[in-house]
């Protein structure tokens, strides 16, 4: 099957039912996307499929074939961090950092739908992601600052 990840096309011989998460991590060695539960309950495995945040652990590789998959490794542009990555680093929006790729991808998805979300919209927009280190307060700060930065740039 053909899988396009971070703008690169890969022709892969894999079981069509294998999870996208497993293919990304094991075949393409893109280990930034994490396993937390394998059942769609934690958000650690979130990637963008055609711009929509999706849980790669419960998405089959074949369902992603022919669509644009973006992982955490695909957010940087010309060696520059994506503004959401930048904001998460600046606000130290993590403790262990294991949930971070998932949160960042979910945030990128959220901000593309809602460029200027309220607190409540951020909380419900990120409700599919668990941070067991409890960095939510700083994650919300980071999301807001990324949103404000993007607003500033647009003006």
């Amino acid at each position, binding site marked *: 099957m053909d899988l396009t990840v971070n703008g690169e096309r890969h022709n892969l011989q894999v079981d069509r039912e294998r999870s996208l998460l497993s293919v990304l991590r094991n075949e393409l060695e893109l280990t930034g996307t994490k396993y937390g539960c394998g059942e769609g309950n934690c958000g650690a495995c979130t990637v963008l499929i055609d711009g929509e945040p999706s849980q790669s652990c419960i998405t089959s590789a074949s369902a992603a074939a022919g669509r644009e998959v973006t992982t955490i490794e695909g957010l940087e542009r010309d060696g520059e961090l994506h503004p959401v*990555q930048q904001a998460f*680093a600046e606000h130290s929006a993590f403790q262990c950092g294991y949930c971070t790729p998932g949160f960042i991808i979910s945030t990128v998805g959220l901000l593309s739908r809602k460029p200027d979300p309220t607190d409540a919209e951020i909380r419900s927009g990120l409700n599919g992601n668990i941070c*067991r280190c409890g960095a939510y307060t700083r994650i919300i700060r980071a999301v807001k600052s990324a949103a404000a930065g993007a607003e500033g740039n647009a003006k």
Partner: protein
Amino acid sequence: MVSTPSRSPRRTNSDGLTFEGFGKSYEKVDGADKVTGRSKFGADFTLPGSLHGKIVRSPYAHARIISIDTSAAEKLTGVHAVCTAADFPSDISGDLDTGEVDIGIQFLANLMMARRKVLFEGHPVAAVAATDAHIAAEAARLVKVEYEVLDPVTNPIEAMAADAPLLHEGLVARSLSGTGDRPSNISAHMEVGRGDVEKGFAESDVIVERTFKTSIVHQGYLEPEAETVYWQENGHIDVWANTQGSFAVRGNLANLMKVAAGNITVTPLEVGGAFGAKTIPRVTPVAAILSHKSGRPVKIVLNREEVLKATGPGAAAVVTVKMGATKEGKIKAAQARLVYGAGAFPGAPIMRGVQSVFACYQPENSRVDGYDVVTNTPRVAAYRAPGATVSSFCTEQVMDELARKLNIEPIDFRIMNASKTGDYTVDDNQYTRIGIVEMLQAAKAHPAYTRPIKKSKNGWLTGRGVGIGWWPCGVDQASSRMLVQPDGRVALTTGSVDLSGVRTGLSQLAAETLGIEPSEVTVRVADTDNIPFTGSSAGSKVTRTQSDAVYKAGMAVIDIMRNALAPRFNLEAEFVEYEKGHFFARDNQENKISFKKAAKIINAQAIPIEATASSDPKMRPANGYALNIADVEIDPDTGKIQILDYTLFQDVGRLMNPTQVEGQMHGGAAQGIGWALNEEYVYDDRGQMRNSSLLDYRMPTALDLPMMECVILETPADDGPFGIRGVGEPPIIPPAAALANAVHDATGARITELPMSPERVFWAMRDKSDKG
């Protein structure tokens, strides 16, 4: 004042000093790696040629193993090794290092791989290693195990009964009054106290007694255990682990495998949360045996169901607390009986439970009994301040109730009876410098306490509660090496695994010691061959103990530089001063040499500027304590609790990095709130866990948690060069207590069971109104 050298090489106390670089927030030094996904966690590391290991687990909570047939699995193409307990060395001995929760080595070996009996659902009985994960899974299914199923017991109180199913035929309780006379599921009984509680209760005007119950909860770290072990032909074992303590992994593996520790190298990887659980060996020994048999590296990665069913969660408990006080508010007597479930093998955190249950207060007479009880559930591990969250939930409610009966404001009642520096704990340890009274007073004066509770927009009942918790915090040897590069940058190599900010914190400590900027320091975590012994990153001790090691290494480095520069100043080294990043002659401050320039000059002379130091073994634990004020609203129709306002107080000794401290405070509170309101293991009567997924074991998300204000207090520890206290564990302790007291304030009902699910709160409210 600057913290940089005085001529005395040892500084054991920070009183009177201020630190220029403290109190500032620095970004995490691992930020770029974490936000790009470049950080290598356990499962992200793969050695070429690695096999995939898979553990075969018992489907039963309690059964005798009749036979294990591995032949079909062995024959499957792609399978390189299959092991059972028979492959593990049996005549093992030695002390284990498993953090804050002890386990005997034979028990640990049986926990790794069941021998005659399986004692919990998920108990390993065999393991396979194959070329890919699918073959390994298939091979695991082909291992045939015949069991004789036995009745399980999962509740610690039921397990104590004389007719309960017996887990270990030879287990006889240890206690101060001697060992018991016949086997039971009680593995230990601990008893401590002061004075005469009966007399104390007789002298009390008001007595409150309640029994509380809590369930097993999981640390819930998002990253499952994942380790790679390569047992090479030459006998050397390499381990890559997402562990809290690389030296603990080395020592434990050496004892379990009967190999010399020097033949094992452990390289710590990034750890995606641990909270005490990743201190106890879990998959390393199994991967080691599989690697030994196959001659290939073996990687084992657990899945979420395995994590929940078969790693070490936090203990369930049943606790009775009885306290009596005079009309004037003096606590005359306090008695507690703590029963903690250890899971399948002995070693629940009863000692910490016993120490912490009345630690914040000074009852005139006290008596505390702790029971360590085995049950057919996974063997517990430490969970952030193990034992203390539960004991505080119980004591703080009894304190609240007692105060209300005495018509004293609960916070005043706490202040009147609070422990102070120099007082003694129930088990006769003297407190080092503490500021519990100061913390209570700060809370009492804070707007979070003085302002009215917000009105419920839903028209629900509202209430406010206070809860406080104490934690001893640990000490252990900690080591770091400092190397000054020719360009003046400082490379710090440390033995402490970085769970959530060690590198950031140590860069700040090194900078403060040397009088340079943290950005000039690069910190790396070493493998076990490249740094002296360092205790696990557990027990809230890393920053405190490393502050001594880093300080000493820094002092030694400056001495080297001072000696090397002395000829340039035409002076003896003792007349060369160093301050704020510059060397100069004591009586001529004109000619200064910057740290950077000195580094270049000295390195050019081929003089290594390098020093390794370990923390002072005499360093004492600096206790931690925290307080929460919780405002809640409760739906009278459903019992649902919502948090309106939440404020965290904690004494950190000295505040180094507010962002880091806030991160720990928020994180502990988030787990404490989850524990208080939602989380619990549910077992059926066959001992099968009913909620082994993150859908059913629900941890708080952004929607569940309020914004939390942090109030950080500073009572410097009375030893250590920077006066730092432990920060990581105390914040999980008060939430259950504060929330329970808030629920009572709102509804008049006492919730004696965790979690405080809507159903429990609803029935407690009903019960209360039935009784009028």
